[in-house]
């Protein structure tokens, strides 16, 4: 299935520091359904590495990581239903 731009949820965590970016990812994941695509935009350096770790731990799919100077965008797809 192709992804439509309009269906992507965007969550900004610019300026936020540990543990807020991770927490916001978890909040968004909990509210999502199977197949949903969520994009996170932030600039906390450690979270660029740790969000993919959390996504993998929870069994979801990491679609894309983009970097633009200090800013990053991480796109994920939800797999399965959250308990």
């Amino acid at each position: 299935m192709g992804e439509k731009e309009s269906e992507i949820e965007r969550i900004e965590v610019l300026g936020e520091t540990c543990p807020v970016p991770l927490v916001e990812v978890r909040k968004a994941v909990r509210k999502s359904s199977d197949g949903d695509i969520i994009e996170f935009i932030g600039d906390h350096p450690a979270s660029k590495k740790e969000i993919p770790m959390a996504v993998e731990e929870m069994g979801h799919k990491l679609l894309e990581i983009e970097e633009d100077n200090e800013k990053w965008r991480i796109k994920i797809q939800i797999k399965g239903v959250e308990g």
Partner: protein
Amino acid sequence: MSGKATLIVHSGEMDKVYSALIIGNGALSMGMDVSIYFTFWGLERLKKDQLENGPLSRKNMLGLGKWMVEKKMKEANVAPLEKMLEDFVELGGKILACDMTMEIMGIEKGDLRDDVITEYCAVGTYVKEAKESEITLFI
């Protein structure tokens, strides 16, 4: 993912409560179940309007050290403890209050933040939860 983390907060100092809530929120964010037990001086922080009121564990300097650290934290945009606790509860973390501490220190349920406390319990509950946990910490 699965797994569980069980933390004891025995200390009431601000920096230690920060550590507990940051680790707790981090573990929840990684998909784990998390229980935090507040006991002894830690339980003081669950009294109404007391969450942010602990001193620094070192270099408090009658509050001057704490003031400086709080200033630095604000500059670094670190979330306040109140927000961390709110996130913790929202993500399904459990807050447990030690009932023996309540008895020893003369703390009544009405003195505590009943809105965030999941359960009032004793050591048996902790041991059972810790036994099921991959991560246990005493802070």
